[in-house]
């Protein structure tokens, strides 16, 4: 003996409202969708049929009834039993006349969305062929329904009546409903009229601004569309399209900078119905600074019809839209460079990501980019004017350590730490084959400094400083370097720092992990940090002449000062030197001798 599954309609409604649909307002879209599909089905048989949808709210507050009426193909009694009361069965899968582009609804759950806002749904319908009397189907949230034939004569079409629940009636008043109809149905290719007593007003324009004829009204309409529907004030806009996805629309460049971490939300209409205004996956990631409004005929929606199905069609469409954007940028670079510059002025970060994504765009855009250097933000061309060998620090941490020294020795160093900058710098040979990139650290600078001619001075400084800093792990160098105003420099080797991190971890580890870390240790590759005294500096020369305990204190303070300049962390010992040593020196200075 076979049985049928039992379905709890209440439970199913809760499932839909909590897990499928993002908002109870989607019932408006579902009803519009059903209406559009019905009239489109009628148009297949009657191509000149004057289709429309009419929406009317009777009453307000508790007891208000919302009516959605279409003059579409209508339903027979049998179809009402089959499609309205069988969840998951959609007339649009096989029963309606075949139509190019298919129908909006496919999954057979749309009408259920009405039960999120209404306890009772009444459908009055007359089939187009008029062979049967009109029917009235009444569905209730407890899962029961009834069907009866009506004696009155009505025109083919369907009207759906919702007696709104009290909470829904409070939320979905006339103003809200009109707003939702415009929101979802703005681009529907048939009039959607709001009826209030004797007055009717068409709520939708039915036409995308990009479908208008070229000219000032079109460009104004496109910009206004962005302000009203996308919530941005556009700096610029251009058309984008994809044949594969049947996509056509506008990409907007906003007048405010956009953060990469902000999830881009594009407005996508599917066959004229708004699918969502927060579709994230439409464009390649590198186009994050753009916001699009598009129509699609071919892309497939998810079951909730609030997002796009992640399939190869979407992937191919995304690629084509990316190519469409690239062509626009290439054309701008060639014939409208000022327009491109306006984009870069506001969205340099976004354009840098674009350049990372494509070699051709890199070559076109790289000259327009600026990079942080120890001499401020400089355009790439200015950087290359200085030298074909770009000295760069790969992270902001490394840059801060080297920037001050580089300035002191009049060297230009570029920071690769900010988003995309490192990647762009590493590909700079795409722009100019002769350019090379050299990663630099303080350690590197120190190796190029000259040995002082005064060997006696060097010996005094070397001996005195090593004694003063014997408790610290560093290699003391005495060199001449410019500017002479800088008394000393500190440079840590990144490999040495990591080796220290490893030693620290191994010290506390058990035998197993200590042996594991031992396999990673490479002490021979790590160089001790360098503390380099500037023999050209008058202060350092004075310390050398002074000697004694005062010199020892001075060397230690100079060491800590160099650590601070290099943005190195200070430990307890270093802080004690900073506090105690400075006071000692001041006292010595006041007394004119040793403390």
């Amino acid at each position, binding site marked *: 003996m076979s049985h049928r599954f039992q379905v709890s309609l209440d439970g199913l409604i809760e499932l839909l409202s909590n897990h499928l649909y993002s908002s109870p307002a989607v019932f408006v879209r579902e009803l519009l969708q059903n209406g559009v599909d019905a009239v489109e089905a009628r148009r297949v048989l009657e191509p000149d049929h004057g289709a429309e949808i009419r929406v009317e709210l009777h009453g307000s507050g508790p007891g208000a009834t919302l009516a959605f009426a279409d003059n579409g193909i209508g339903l027979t009694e049998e179809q009402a039993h089959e499609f309205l009361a069988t969840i998951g069965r959609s007339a649009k899968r096989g029963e309606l006349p075949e139509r190019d582009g298919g129908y909006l609804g496919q999954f057979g759950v749309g009408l259920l969305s009405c039960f999120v806002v209404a306890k009772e749904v009444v459908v009055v319908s007359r089939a187009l062929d008029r062979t049967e009397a009109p029917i009235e189907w009444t569905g209730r949230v407890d899962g029961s329904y009834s069907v009866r034939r009506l004696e009155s004569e009505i025109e083919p079409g369907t009207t759906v009546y919702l007696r709104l629940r009290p909470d829904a009636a409070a939320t979905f008043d006339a103003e809200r409903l009109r707003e939702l109809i415009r929101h979802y149905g703005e681009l529907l290719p048939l009039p959607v009229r709001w009826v209030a007593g004797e007055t009717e007003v068409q709520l939708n324009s039915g036409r995308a601004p990009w479908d208008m004829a070229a000219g000032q009204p079109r460009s104004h309409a496109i910009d206004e569309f962005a302000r009203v529907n996308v919530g941005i004030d556009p700096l610029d806009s251009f058309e984008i399209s994809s044949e594969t996805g049947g996509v056509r629309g506008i990409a907007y460049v906003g007048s405010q900078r956009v953060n990469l971490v902000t999830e881009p939300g594009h407005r996508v209409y599917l066959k004229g119905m708004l699918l969502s205004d927060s579709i994230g996956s439409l464009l*390649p990631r590198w186009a994050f600074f753009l916001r699009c409004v598009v129509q699609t005929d071919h892309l497939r929606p998810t079951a909730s019809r609030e997002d796009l199905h992640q399939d190869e069609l979407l992937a191919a469409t995304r*690629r084509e839209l990316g190519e469409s954007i690239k062509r626009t940028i290439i054309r701008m670079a060639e014939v409208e460079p000022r327009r491109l510059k306006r984009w870069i002025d506001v969205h340099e970060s976004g354009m840098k990501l674009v350049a990372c994504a494509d070699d051709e765009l890199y070559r076109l855009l790289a000259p327009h980019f600026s990079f942080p250097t120890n001499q401020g933000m400089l355009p790439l061309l200015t950087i290359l004017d200085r030298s074909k060998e770009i000295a760069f620090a790969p992270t*902001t941490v490394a840059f801060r350590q080297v920037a001050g020294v580089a300035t002191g020795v009049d060297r230009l160093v570029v920071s690769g730490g900010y*988003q995309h900058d490192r990647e762009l710098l590493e590909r700079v040979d795409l722009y100019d084959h002769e350019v090379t990139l050299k990663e630099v650290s303080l350690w590197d600078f120190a190796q190029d400094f000259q040995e002082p001619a005064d060997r006696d001075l060097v010996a005094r400084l070397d001996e005195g400083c090593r004694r003063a800093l014997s408790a610290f792990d560093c290699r003391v160098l005495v060199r001449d370097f410019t500017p002479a105003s800088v008394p000393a420099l500190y440079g840590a080797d990144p490999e040495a720092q990591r080796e220290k*991190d490893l030693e*620290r*971890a191994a010290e506390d580890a058990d035998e197993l*992990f200590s042996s594991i870390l031992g396999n990673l240790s490479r002490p021979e590759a790590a160089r001790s940090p360098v503390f380099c005294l500037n023999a050209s500096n008058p202060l350092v020369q004075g310390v050398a002449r002074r000697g004694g305990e005062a010199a020892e204190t001075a060397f230690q303070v100079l060491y800590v000062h160099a650590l601070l300049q290099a943005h190195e962390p200070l*430990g307890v010992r270093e802080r004690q030197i900073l506090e105690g040593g400075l006071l000692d020196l001041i006292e010595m200075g006041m007394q004119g001798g040793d403390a």
Partner: protein
Amino acid sequence: MSSNECEELIRRADNANHDPEGIALAERAMRQADLSGTFEQRLEARMILTGHATFGGSPEIALVAFTWCLSHYDEPDARAWRASILWNYKWILRSLYRFPQFTIQQCERAHEDAMRRFQEAGYSTRPVLLIRAIELCRRGEIDASREVLDASLALPRDSRADCEACEPEQIATVLEATGNWQDVLRASDDVLHRGLVCAEQPELTHAMVLHSLCELDLLDEARRYHLISFEPTLSMPSLTTAVARHVLFLLRTENPERAAEAVSAYWGKTLEEAPDDRFDFAVSASLLCRDLQAAGLETEIRVPRAHELHGTTSGRDLAALGAYFDAESARLADAFDARNGTTHYRSLMARHAEDVARRMPVRL
């Protein structure tokens, strides 16, 4: 620097991406916390560094940072962090096996340590056993890996298990080694057909199933997953093996130029990855170079700036690049085989070459 200033450094590090910048910020936060921060700050900075380094392609740095955290696991002040430490332990366990300089005994002792800690903390050892199953099959111990997989799947999932989107791909990895392609697809079904997603899913699963789909002659489906995930995979760090799988698929389906794009785009990201991942990449790149040369194509493979070959070897010198990748894959294979006492890695190289030779043209 006060602990408030330490806190600021830690927050900056936490907000950074999984890339060299994020790693540098986390290292700075860690070193400052060591000097002037609280115990919790020292721990937190290292946990952040472990994440950035693991997913930013620097597993050695992750291992060092994590070791300190594990060493202090039993301290009272670490109590609030223990669950997170166990979560990170899974990443580290996986990476240990992927370095040939760590002996099998070291890896297995770490595995036993992880099992003990999970059990003592009241968590299911399902994810730990799953890692073991994967590593057994990477060593060629297929029967043993299957037994361990079954034992893993018999255990319950809990909050320390990998998410429902990530676990199937790991299971499929073991099943693939048994050659049961249908089982691979069944295991991957939730991601492939029910839309489960995560930070690296469906990309990892899509790459995972390409070979099985080819073996089952389901080329349309393979093409679909390749098209959906190819570009997103190239844009994400630490997906070296997934990229290698796409490259092998592209070679088998006679799309070598697209494979060259992948190798060019991703090579720079692999330089500090674990040797096992670099092995996968080197094998696929080696086969690519052979293919391009055999076809007489003058395709360029961009040499990353940080690579030893940069400046000395042109990206168009496919013979030289091919020789490099041949030598690199052989070197890594021998290192792993010596560690494992098998010839499995060498046989993997041969198997990939055979697979790629069985062409199945697909227009993309």
